[in-house]
């Protein structure tokens, strides 16, 4: 029972980690929070859902298309919401993406209705026994895909020219620009990568719970953000660790205390971390400059 809760927590945590990486990457290059990131994840889930139901594509193809679709959405968000406001005060882009998130969520609701959609798949509940705990097919899918994506991301960040440029911008944007890094292209690419991971998370979670609904991005986005804050906001490994901690803690709370507290835990953690150690586990301390 306990092991099973841990496994469920790990699966849920991997999802938070995938979304959280997007927050961390974007915060890394811009120092801003992308409030509509949860909606990008929701759009990814819906693209996956439509590809599977309407076009009868296999899961892997739907997943790839969802990643591509979410990446395009992320690219557009940067182009239309962040780029015009890059020199504006910090609150401007925050409110702007907050508005975007509300618009996207409600537009999805208008188009597809607010009810929860499920795949008509014959859920045979293929499950494996793992030291006495049940491990479902969907969980294995989540673990392998998210692990693969995270390894791929590490490869991009530390072995490619683009990754070097992303890290350079995160360190010092002006200096990176002076060194010939094309700031706009790299930031756009960062948004595309982060959003693509979010889109993948959307499809995975949709398959896991077999539920797709327009408001799914709100809570997931907030919790993934909590995970990112827990890890240090700009740190990719931090986001992964934070996501997994949050997923496990949440599942244990729901199982042993009360399922009503499931959502509460995340916010309590968020406020505690922000108050006690705003720089998170891996974050650097923030020094105010005059």
């Amino acid at each position: 029972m306990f092991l099973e809760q841990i496994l469920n927590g790990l699966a849920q945590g991997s999802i938070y980690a995938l979304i959280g990486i997007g927050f961390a990457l974007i915060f890394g290059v811009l120092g801003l929070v992308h409030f509509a990131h949860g909606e990008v994840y929701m759009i990814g889930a819906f693209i996956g859902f439509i590809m599977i139901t309407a076009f009868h594509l296999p899961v892997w193809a739907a997943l790839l298309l969802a990643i591509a679709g979410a990446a395009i959405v992320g690219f557009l968000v940067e182009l239309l919401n962040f780029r015009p406001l890059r020199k504006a005060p910090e609150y401007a882009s925050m409110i702007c993406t907050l508005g975007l998130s509300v618009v996207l969520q409600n537009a999805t609701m208008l188009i597809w209705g607010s009810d929860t959609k499920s795949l008509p798949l014959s859920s045979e509940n293929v499950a494996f026994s793992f030291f006495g705990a049940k491990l479902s097919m969907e969980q294995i899918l989540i673990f392998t895909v998210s692990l693969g994506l995270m390894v791929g991301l590490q490869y991009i960040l530390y072995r490619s020219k683009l990754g070097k440029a992303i890290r350079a911008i995160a360190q010092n944007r002006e200096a990176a620009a002076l060194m010939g890094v094309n700031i706009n292209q790299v930031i756009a690419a960062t948004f595309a990568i982060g959003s693509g991971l979010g889109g993948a998370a959307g499809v995975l979670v949709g398959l896991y719970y077999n539920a797709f609904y327009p408001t799914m991005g709100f809570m997931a986005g907030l919790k993934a953000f909590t995970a990112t804050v827990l890890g240090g906001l700009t740190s990719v490994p931090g986001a992964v660790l934070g996501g997994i901690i949050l997923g496990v803690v949440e599942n244990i709370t729901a199982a042993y205390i009360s399922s009503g507290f499931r959502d509460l835990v995340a916010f309590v953690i968020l406020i505690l971390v922000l108050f006690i150690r705003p720089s998170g586990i891996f974050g650097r301390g923030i020094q105010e400059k005059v």
Partner: protein
Amino acid sequence: MMNMSKSLLTSILRRIDEKEKSLYLSLLIAVAILPLVWQSDYVLRIATLCGIYIVLALGLNLVTGYAGQMCLGWAAFYGIGAYTSALLVMRLHASFWLALPAAGLMAAFFGLLLGIPTMRLKNTYLAITTLGFGEIVRLILLNWTDLTRGSMGLPGIPSPSFLGIDLEGKLFYYYFIVVLVIVTLVTMARIVDSRLGRALQAIREDELAAKSMGIDTTRYKIIAFAIGAFFAGIAGSFFAHYSAYIDPHNFAFGESIAVLSMVILGGMRSLPGVVFGAVVLTLLPEVLREAAEYRMIVFGGILMLTMLLRPQGIFGGVQRKKVSQTPVAVGQGKQPLYQNR
């Protein structure tokens, strides 16, 4: 007492020049005779709703507009006020006239609590904390079923009575919210030009500079949260008794966004702007009746477009001249002279 209120009145009137005086007077008369000229329960209901949102938005404006502290969980104070008042009256049989200030004070107390993190958090971090706070309050209202009945809500909240007369008429509520709006407006106008208001604006322009000029920034920010929340609590209490039924859904994230949109559309730091924003955004969904499901899209779109096209809001900048004559970046607020973001 009489003397004091008289001097208060003259000091307010002195601030308003002649042209504005006649404008405000004619507005006041229009508001006063509206229910007599246009006898319709529907119109009265919308007007009362406008009043509730004006009070809510003015409270948020103090925190977000003047003090520059983003709050994305404003509906929490609204909800705390509503539930405090409703539960006091229903469970403890307290009088509405006691429950109303109690609701304000309870919300102010939570405002104080939420103000404390501003000591260490700013901008995005603070915004997220307030968002989390809003969700926590909603989830507690939803899950503490022994006290709040959870999602079943609280039906049959009684109307107030005065000297044994039951005041449940729609007219009473209308004129009562008009009084509340006027009280809130006058209080806010007084605060803005007071030492507190100046301190808050200094904090918004440049917190570090304000601090080094000897302003106790934490204390002032917490006070701003408490005062703003007090008015939100009052609005909540009024709403609870007016609608006679509340449930946690009334105080969800969408409400926080709605109030924020009102403040931002009209223009932060402009009292007429905030009133304008609250009225327009309450009327808009009613005008687009058959498209009620577009309500949230409209709010979201307004947040986006205002930021992209006119970040200071429609009325923003009107009062700017009063605050500062400096034409350089300092007057634009919030930004240090250079930045490396």
